[in-house]
């Protein structure tokens, strides 16, 4: 993919260093690493800088030397930005996790199943809107917003596989195998998502719309990227995955209903249709087998697992708040509106 447009000094320093590394750009990038600014979770410049840096681990950028992934200034900047993120997220979520812990120790399954309603209860529902009121243009915006995660669906969670022990690993692979198409490349979930984008006239190359993503989309993406990049946070990846699975089956059904109401072609909604059944199974496997085995084998993983679960729900709630706020006022939820769709 192409490097996105910078949004301020930090992302400028990152993009310029990747585009043309030099002693000068190196020095510039080191200042990004060292400059602490409170409020990274609202700072789209620093979030974009981190998103670009994490992207070196996933997909790289056209015209950028892949070796730069381990460039010292790059690693230092990423580490520093992630330290800021960690500090802010943990300050927000540690009290919530502390409160949940006694209950989760008694009844892990029940606690996890109750989390979406408790943590994200106030977040507006994009899927309910899809079913009742979403326009075709909003449908396209929704795909563009979700493309940050869904075009690399399952990949960040797969980073947890080598980092968790046997029983949990096996159960996680059971889910991931299904995410990756159960042996059928045409059933790869990221591929189904790409088809959904193409069906409504969108570019499905990863990051093709990065310039349009608002801060909460970047926050959601880099939060998972931060967990996924570190062995220590593997239980958080598992907690995050569990919440993704748990908040997918019923909403997917609403998206299918919305697409049908809008008369969209089947390719536009097959992705969601697939997730109704798939995730009804995955959520059970995630809660009982992945989380259950992980915590049973090592009870000390529980707080980290809960941080991942709560953080995931929280950042997705921020995305929904921003998007629904815009749509209810008849505005675009994107930083740069899309070209209107001319249906074939």
């Amino acid at each position, binding site marked *: 993919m192409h490097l996105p447009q910078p949004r301020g000094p930090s992302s400028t320093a990152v993009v310029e260093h990747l585009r043309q590394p030099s002693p000068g750009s190196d020095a510039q990038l080191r200042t990004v690493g060292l400059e602490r600014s409170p409020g990274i979770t609202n700072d789209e410049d620093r979030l974009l800088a981190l998103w670009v840096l994490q992207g070196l681990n996933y997909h790289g950028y056209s015209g950028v030397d892949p070796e730069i992934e381990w460039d010292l200034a790059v690693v230092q900047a990423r580490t520093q930005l992630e330290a800021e993120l960690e500090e802010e997220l943990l300050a927000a979520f540690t009290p919530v996790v502390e409160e949940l812990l006694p209950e989760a120790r008694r009844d892990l*399954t029940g606690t996890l*199943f109750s989390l979406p309603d408790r943590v994200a209860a106030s977040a507006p529902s994009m899927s309910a809107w899809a079913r009742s009121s979403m326009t075709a243009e909003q449908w396209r915006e929704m795909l563009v917003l979700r493309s940050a995660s869904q075009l690399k669906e399952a990949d960040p969670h797969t980073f947890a596989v080598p980092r968790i022990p046997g029983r949990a690993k096996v159960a996680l692979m*059971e889910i991931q*195998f*299904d995410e990756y198409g*159960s042996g*059928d490349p045409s*059933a790869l979930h990221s591929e189904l998502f790409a088809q959904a984008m193409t069906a409504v006239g969108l570019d499905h190359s990863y990051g093709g719309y990065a310039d349009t993503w608002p801060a909460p989309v970047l926050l959601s993406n880099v939060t998972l990227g931060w967990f996924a990049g570190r062995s220590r946070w593997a239980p958080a990846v598992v907690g995050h995955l569990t919440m993704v699975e748990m908040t997918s*089956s*019923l909403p997917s*059904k609403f998206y299918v209903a919305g697409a049908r109401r809008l008369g969209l072609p089947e390719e536009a909604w097959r992705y969601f249709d697939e997730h*109704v*059944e*798939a*995730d*009804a*199974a995955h*959520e*059970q*496997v995630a809660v*009982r087998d992945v989380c259950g085995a992980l915590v049973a084998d090592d009870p000390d993983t529980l707080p980290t697992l809960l941080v991942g679960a709560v953080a995931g729900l929280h950042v997705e709630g921020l995305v929904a708040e921003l998007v629904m706020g815009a749509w209810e006022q008849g505005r675009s939820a994107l930083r740069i509106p899309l070209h209107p769709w001319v249906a074939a």
Partner: protein
Amino acid sequence: MRGDRVPVATPLPTELLRLTECEDGPVLVRGARVVVDAQGVTHPVTRPVVALCRCGASQRLPWCDGVHKRLGKRETSTG
């Protein structure tokens, strides 16, 4: 009323199946190639693990579509 919509038949050979009953939810089935629903209709299994609806409220029978969660809530809140 609900009970008669729930899939009852599982494919052979049953000794290769692994069944996990999820409390207030579906039964997870591993190792099945097909699932035969209550009407005798055969459904191919394409995933390593599938969730069969036990509450009867799914709109995707024989598969669970997650709607049992709503059901559970309604029942507990009313009684």
